[in-house]
């Protein structure tokens, strides 16, 4: 009996129990679709987070107060008074001490209500230095950015994000207007070009930037004049990132007079941020993928169960085929092909459902779903493998049936 004939016989058997075959395939189908979608959702979330962090700028190091490696308790965290100062920032920008650092921008942030006339908008106000624009790789849509003169004189000037402008100045033309922050009047001198962040939690297009000195005197009452919440450090190049990291680390340790094990600050690179952020997603993906994998396993057990039922039910047919000359291996092949056809068909349909889900789901969840070709091929191969595995034992049983025991079963 050749391959085509085996295949034809298997398909006939599957077709003659249409409902049962469909339900069996459904188990594999749902399992495969679930695995594809959970993994796709996880990968989608990861690539989204990476894309957002990449927008920070590629040569960037981010210095924040407090230690992430601390095991001895809290050491000057973000909420309490900051351990980082504007003096730290200017020390980092010294070309002699840190030749691999191109520029430095210290920032302090505070959530404030901005008022224009009768309209109100709450946003993040950032106090920083003129090179923030370069360090954060941003550009201006109109007007100018804050200058050294603004900083030195602690002028009440502000640069707004595109979304903030849209909220406060719906008729446009923000430059030259006045906005009130924490009781002080600020002149809008520029508007940042939008970069279109899609994150729901933070927006890089909704913010107000003011000089660091002005921030300390007029915006944030409870922060000491010189303390900052984040120092952005731009390395000279991507290859100088490690050197810049070491220079910044050594300089700050010396300035703060602490050993590296007692560091009261932490330095993160864009890569390490991506790694941390995506590793959480990766863990979740593995977890959800595992649950989906179990449903696939259950689907596989379903195939095995049905194949065993099918062997028991078709004892007479098997016996007759053997009486007419079917060899044990021909019978084994027939049942193996039957089981793997169920598996593979279920896998292909599951892949189809997964692809449909990947198109439809993002509209409802506002989450991207990524299906890689590797995952797609893998899913179908796994389904086929499950079918074959589930078929081995029932097929072996069918092959071993003595023709006479099978025929006598009336």
């Amino acid at each position, binding site marked *: 009996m050749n391959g085509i004939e085996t295949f034809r016989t298997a398909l006939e058997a599957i077709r*003659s129990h249409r409902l049962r075959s469909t339900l069996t395939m459904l188990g594999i189908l749902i399992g495969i679709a679930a695995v594809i979608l959970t993994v796709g959702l996880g990968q989608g979330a990861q690539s989204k987070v990476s894309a957002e962090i990449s927008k920070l700028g590629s040569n960037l190091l981010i210095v924040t107060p407090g230690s992430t490696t601390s095991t001895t308790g809290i050491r000057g965290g973000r909420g309490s008074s900051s351990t980082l100062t504007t003096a730290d920032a200017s020390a980092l920008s010294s070309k002699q001490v840190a030749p691999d650092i191109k520029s430095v921008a210290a920032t302090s942030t505070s959530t404030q209500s901005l008022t224009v006339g009768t309209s109100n908008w709450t946003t993040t106000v950032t106090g920083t230095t003129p090179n923030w624009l370069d360090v954060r790789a941003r550009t201006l849509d109109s007007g100018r950015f804050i200058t050294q003169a603004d900083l030195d004189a602690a002028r009440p000037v502000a640069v707004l994000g595109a979304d903030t402008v849209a909220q406060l100045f719906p008729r446009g033309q923000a430059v030259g207007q006045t906005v009130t922050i924490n009781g002080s009047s600020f002149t809008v001198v520029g508007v940042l070009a939008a970069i279109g962040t899609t994150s729901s939690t933070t927006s890089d297009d909704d913010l107000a930037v003011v000089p660091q000195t002005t921030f300390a005197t007029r915006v944030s009452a409870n922060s000491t004049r010189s303390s900052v919440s984040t120092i952005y450090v731009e390395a000279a190049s991507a290859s100088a990132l490690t050197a810049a990291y070491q220079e910044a680390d050594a300089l700050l340790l010396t300035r703060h007079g602490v050993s590296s094990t007692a560091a009261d600050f932490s330095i993160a690179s864009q890569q390490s941020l991506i790694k941390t952020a995506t590793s959480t997603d990766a863990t979740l993906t593995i977890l959800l993928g595992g649950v989906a994998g179990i449903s696939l396993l259950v689907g596989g057990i379903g195939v095995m169960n049905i194949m065993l039922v099918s062997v028991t039910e078709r004892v007479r047919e098997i016996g007759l085929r053997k009486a007419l000359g079917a*060899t044990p*291996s*021909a019978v084994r092949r027939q049942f193996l092909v039957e089981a793997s056809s169920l598996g593979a068909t279920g896998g292909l349909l599951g892949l189809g459902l997964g692809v449909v889900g990947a198109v439809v789901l993002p509209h409802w969840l506002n989450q991207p779903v990524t299906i890689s070709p590797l995952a797609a091929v893998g899913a179908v191969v796994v389904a086929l493998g499950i079918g074959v595995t589930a078929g081995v034992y029932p097929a072996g049983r069918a092959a071993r049936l003595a023709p*006479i025991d099978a025929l006598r079963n009336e």
Partner: protein
Amino acid sequence: MSTLRLTDVRKTYSSGHLEVEALRGITMSVEEGEYVAVMGPSGSGKSTLMHILGCLDVPTAGSYELAGTDVSKMTETELAEVRNRRIGFVFQGFNLLPSMSAWRNVELPLVYAGLARDVRRARAIAALERVGLGDRVDHRPGELSGGQQQRVAVARALVSDPALILADEPTGNLDSRSTADVLSLFAELHDSGRTIMLITHEADVAQAAQRTVRIRDGLVEQVVAA
């Protein structure tokens, strides 16, 4: 040379502690081209004998030679080939696959012989024409009468052109008209040189054979030449 030779064949069925001696020492031989009837009351061991002759079951003791070869020394795969090439079975209960049309049932032995589909179809239809069912090739067993179903089974037994045809009470479920049809088919097959063993408990059916072997309680009681 004899087609089949049984020497002191015994068959004991044991289910749990219960043992049934279905055959208790059968010695007989059938020559090529013979038409032999096996008669005996129900439970005398006729079906057991036919299963052993057809290589569907193995004796507990004794030897069975088919065309000079000891069957007990053959592997499962070799036995499958013997059943496929040399033997045609006709069962009392027809044993047709209900989901397949008449010609698909008839072609089954040829499928396992590895013949191409168009050859199989041509030979299956020729076999069906031979048993007078040329106009029923696409009917399913459920759409045929008992006599027609048994004729499909006979077509299946002869399609691979086997030397030996084994029939276990082939007319047991048939009316007298269909019985006559089936018996005349066997007569034709015999005329064309096939060895035929026909198991029955009806004396008038056994009359068609050249020789009748009577068995009782698993032993050969009497051999009657026609």
